[in-house]
């Protein structure tokens, strides 16, 4: 057995729990002040990794071409108990791919997510939002907005994007609820994932025979016409990555965003008086919650000098988005929720070539949903004390399991 020095033994355990819905774990502040690039020990496997906490350092490392996002690399800071042989057997898309495979996939999908293309979905998205608000108002009493609003709206938006027939949509909603629920067990999740994979596979075959006007058809046609050279199965994995990347993140932001606006009446009133603040409000919500904190983990493929710290080849790096987004050098009074904040662009959607590819779509949904909800349900308030809201502390992505409200 190798000797572990006292300092090594005392590396803080990672991840650290968030104690309230807002802001990152409290420990980040002290780490950023005292040793902004420092070692932590992964709770999952006891291995060491570098935790990077300053905004400039996080951006620098995420822009560096000498880091890899490949989760099957030996030094990758794993947070979930998935055995390596399984990780290696599951085909990876976008998120955990490096250049040049990543570049090819990203180029294939990005024409589907231009600002122009997504703007054309606004009207339909608002109709969807209104339908769910209608149902909530009809229901009355106490309503869980996670189940009745936050989960179904992104699922419905993805259905629109992929061109899922209305008759099949209940399947998508059941999938999302089955994957994201607090009581979902691993077996149930595996079954749902397999069903989704089979559904997407069928859809790919149908649409390659008869392309329509939807994302899946567009990917198939573009791949063929522009010589991207992907197999149909690879496009299927890409579509699954879009589904996976698009729902939980958006749903969690909807829930947390509503909570923040209930909790901060002054900010809510500002937004309701001036709807042009919606886009900045979404930026500020992305910053304050930083729901994907360490999804941006990396491995150094060469020695990298980051500030005063030498990160050795093969070492894991956790570029903490939540820590970067609360760096007081860039965001004065970082724990204050202020939708009029004039600051540099935060890294809530990540930074570098892996920055969220669906962010335009997420922003569109969030910009519409908050003002609409409070316009139609002005008396919206929590139905339980805020301290009792169940946080998703066991998930990779920060959020709420339930948001019971009344009005």
């Amino acid at each position, binding site marked *: 057995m190798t000797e572990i020095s006292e300092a090594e033994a005392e590396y803080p355990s990672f991840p650290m729990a968030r104690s309230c819905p807002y802001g990152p774990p409290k420990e980040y502040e002290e780490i950023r002040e005292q040793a902004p690039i420092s070692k932590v020990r992964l709770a999952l496997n006891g291995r060491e990794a570098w935790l990077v906490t300053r905004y400039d350092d996080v951006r620098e490392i995420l822009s560096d071409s000498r880091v890899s996002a490949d989760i099957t690399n030996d030094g990758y800071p794993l947070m979930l108990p998935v055995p390596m042989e399984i990780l290696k057997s599951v085909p990876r898309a976008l998120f955990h791919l490096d250049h040049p495979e990543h570049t090819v996939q990203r180029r294939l999908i990005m024409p589907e997510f231009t600002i122009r293309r997504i703007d054309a979905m606004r009207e339909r998205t608002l109709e969807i939002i209104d339908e769910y608000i209608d149902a909530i108002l009809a229901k009355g009493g106490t309503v869980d907005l996670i189940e009745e609003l936050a989960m179904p709206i992104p699922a419905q938006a993805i259905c629109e994007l992929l061109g899922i027939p209305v008759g099949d949509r209940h399947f998508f909603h059941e999938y999302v609820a089955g994957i994201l629920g607090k009581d979902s067990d691993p077996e149930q999740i595996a079954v749902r994932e397999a069903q989704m994979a089979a559904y997407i596979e069928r859809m790919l075959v149908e649409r390659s025979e008869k392309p329509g006007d939807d994302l899946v058809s567009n990917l198939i046609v573009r791949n063929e016409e522009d010589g991207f050279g992907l197999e149909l199965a690879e496009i299927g994995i890409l579509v699954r990555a879009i589904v996976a990347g698009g729902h939980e993140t958006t749903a969690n932001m909807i829930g947390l965003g509503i909570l923040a606006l209930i909790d901060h009446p002054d900010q809510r009133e500002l937004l309701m008086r001036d709807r042009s603040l919606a886009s900045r409000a979404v930026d500020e919500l992305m910053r304050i919650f930083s729901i994907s904190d360490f999804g941006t983990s990396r491995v150094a493929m060469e020695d990298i000098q980051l500030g005063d710290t030498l990160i050795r080849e093969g070492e894991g790096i956790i570029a903490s988005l939540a820590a970067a987004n609360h760096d007081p050098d860039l965001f004065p009074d970082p724990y204050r929720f202020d939708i009029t904040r004039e600051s540099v*662009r935060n890294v809530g959607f990540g930074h570098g070539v892996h920055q969220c590819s669906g962010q335009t779509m997420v922003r569109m949904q969030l910009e519409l949903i908050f003002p609409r909800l409070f316009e139609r349900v002005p008396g919206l308030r929590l139905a339980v004390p805020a301290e009792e809201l169940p946080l998703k502390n066991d998930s990779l992505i920060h959020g709420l399991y339930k948001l019971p409200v009344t009005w």
Partner: protein
Amino acid sequence: MRLTVDRERCISSGSCVRSDPAVFDQDVADGRVLLLHEAPGPEHRDAVLRAVHSCPAGALTIVEDR
């Protein structure tokens, strides 16, 4: 000020268009940056600086700033 864009580095995030849609656009075909004005006037300076700083791929460069 004068600007250049590197379409090879561009990852179609749309970040620059969000900063200043009068200076930047996205190519319909691939979502990558289109520079509408190579030499935007001083009234665009703040927004362009923001676009350059926030570009996730470092695809925008100010070649002359005066």
